[in-house]
């Protein structure tokens, strides 16, 4: 077959042709270390990266366009697929934005449950990031320990939500369902396992000479750059600035929780590893507090604008049947207006900017994706480094393709 396929990207530089030892090396988009799909076109002098041109978009699937053609409720499954390592945080961030526009105050139980599940997801997400970054450096044992632990967590979340990765568990005004019996007992067991496994990772990695040599002062990001390039989450905190949406503009139950915001010193790969490991400990600390705070009560608000009536009533009275019908066909009526609501996602500030015209479908849904913003600064971290360090540096950014490319 002789098919001419156009090049989907245009690099900013081409081989100069001069005999100056510079070569252009293309990495990705299908490369085992670019978890997700990202392409980095590098200009090398020997092993040193002179320039890097980062191309994302290979996973673009028109999330924002698709949202405009669905009701406010129907796009919750799409929201899950943004950061597919911590889908619950996406769910809750999106629901929070819609609820704010509708003026809904969620029930006390849902408030605590969402906080708890967000932190639980954060542990899963950080484990994924750290595990992948370690595996790429050859630390297979640490990778398998962490994957074991992540599987405990994901299977456990599946007990509550029905899925391991794409949960569709958030609902506008509440949650899909309450926790199953015995869930909290298993939670404590998993947290004990967490201690066991994470202790092994600390033992294997923290003072490992090879690991430190590969990570310390590699992929350094200055604090000024981090702010200018809009970095948030562990990226920003690794540079020593303790900024965290949970602390600075508290939402859900974070104002009532006791936790610290860990920071790094140099903003290098090792700091990002340490910040993530410390954040997981803080998350566990928060989860234990939240279990004690969890009140009994309903999980959905009593608001016919967005919450489906009970099945029993749908089958027995006409008003509930009509409400159910209207909510499914027309969608919840969200008052006209616009709102930007942010939550601390696992890798930074996850914001939803939504615009409503008062219809059952959104006029505009925009996701402020931390991964995408962080890709904008990746070249600053790669340039001047070694080609072999590209892989751990990229790994420590924790770019998630589904969220970056939307």
């Amino acid at each position, binding site marked *: 077959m002789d*098919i001419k*396929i*156009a*090049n*989907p*990207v*245009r690099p*900013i530089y081409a081989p100069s042709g001069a005999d100056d030892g510079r070569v252009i090396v293309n990495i990705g988009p299908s490369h085992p270390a670019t978890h997700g799909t990202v392409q980095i076109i590098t200009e090398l002098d020997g092993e040193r990266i002179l320039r890097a041109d980062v*191309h*994302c*978009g290979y996973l*673009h699937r*028109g999330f*924002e*366009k*698709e949202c*405009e*053609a669905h009701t406010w409720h129907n796009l919750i499954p799409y929201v899950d697929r943004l950061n597919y390592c911590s889908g619950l945080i996406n769910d809750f961030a999106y629901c929070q934005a819609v609820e*704010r*526009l509708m003026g809904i105050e969620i029930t006390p139980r849902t408030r605590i449950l969402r906080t708890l599940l967000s932190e639980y997801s954060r542990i899963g997400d950080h484990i994924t990031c750290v595990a992948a970054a370690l595996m790429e450096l050859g630390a297979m044992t640490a990778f398998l320990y962490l994957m074991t632990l992540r599987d405990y967590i994901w299977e456990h979340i599946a007990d509550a939500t029905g899925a391991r990765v794409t949960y569709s568990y958030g609902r506008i005004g509440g949650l899909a369902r309450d926790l199953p019996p015995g869930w909290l007992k298993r939670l404590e067991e998993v947290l004990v396992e967490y201690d066991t496994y994470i202790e092994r990772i600390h033992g294997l990695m923290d003072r490992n000479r090879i690991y430190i040599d590969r990570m310390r002062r590699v992929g350094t990001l200055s604090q000024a*750059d981090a*702010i*200018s*390039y*809009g970095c948030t989450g562990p990226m920003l905190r690794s540079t020593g*600035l303790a*900024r965290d949406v949970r602390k*600075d*503009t508290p939402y859900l139950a974070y104002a009532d929780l006791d936790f610290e915001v860990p920071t790094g010193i140099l903003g290098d790969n090792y700091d990002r590893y340490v910040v993530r490991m410390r954040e997981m400990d803080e998350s566990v600390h928060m989860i234990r507090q939240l279990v004690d705070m969890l009140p009994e009560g309903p999980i959905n608000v009593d608001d016919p604008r967005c919450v489906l009536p009970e099945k029993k009533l749908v089958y027995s009275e006409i008003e509930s049947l009509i409400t159910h019908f209207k909510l499914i066909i027309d969608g919840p009526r969200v008052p006209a*207006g*616009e*709102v*930007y609501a*942010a939550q601390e996602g696992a890798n930074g*500030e996850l*914001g939803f*900017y939504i*615009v409503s015209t008062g219809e059952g479908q959104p*006029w*505009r849904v*925009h996701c*402020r994706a931390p991964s*995408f*913003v962080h*890709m*904008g*600064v990746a070249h*600053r971290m790669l340039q001047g480094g070694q080609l072999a360090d590209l892989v751990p540096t990229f790994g420590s950014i924790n770019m998630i393709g589904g969220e970056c*490319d*939307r």
Partner: protein
Amino acid sequence: MDANLPERIRSRLTPEAPTLVVSHGMPVVELAPAQLSAAVRALRDEFGFDMLLDVTAVDWPGQALRFEVVYHLYSTRDFVRLRLKTRVAEADPVVDSLVPLYGSAAFMERECHDMFGIRFRGNDDLRPILLYEGFAGHPLRKDYPKLQEQPLVPYREA
């Protein structure tokens, strides 16, 4: 948020951009494209909005100034978010780039250019970022059909 902040911003940006409301706890400034750069510089240097969180746009077909370009700023000092909005016409969708002020503007403006065709004067790298070279049209405009396909690789015969 400091209760006086909206008033201070309003008096600083007057008379060029006096439209300021507080919506869901967030100050929202509307201004003309010509005032954008100066206003953002003032917000960054005098009010501590040191982070550009987000650049996007909203399409309002049928209106004279069809595109609303929306910026979100954040102050890492005062923990305040602020929204900036400016309107441009379909015939000449150009606003000044914020790349000289914020590094993050480079990628976000590229995305906004991809999706809405807004041109950012001063951002000399507006190559496609989420889309690909040769992609025709701007998918987040309301008149772009959702189901339109532009395959790079031809479909195989069945």
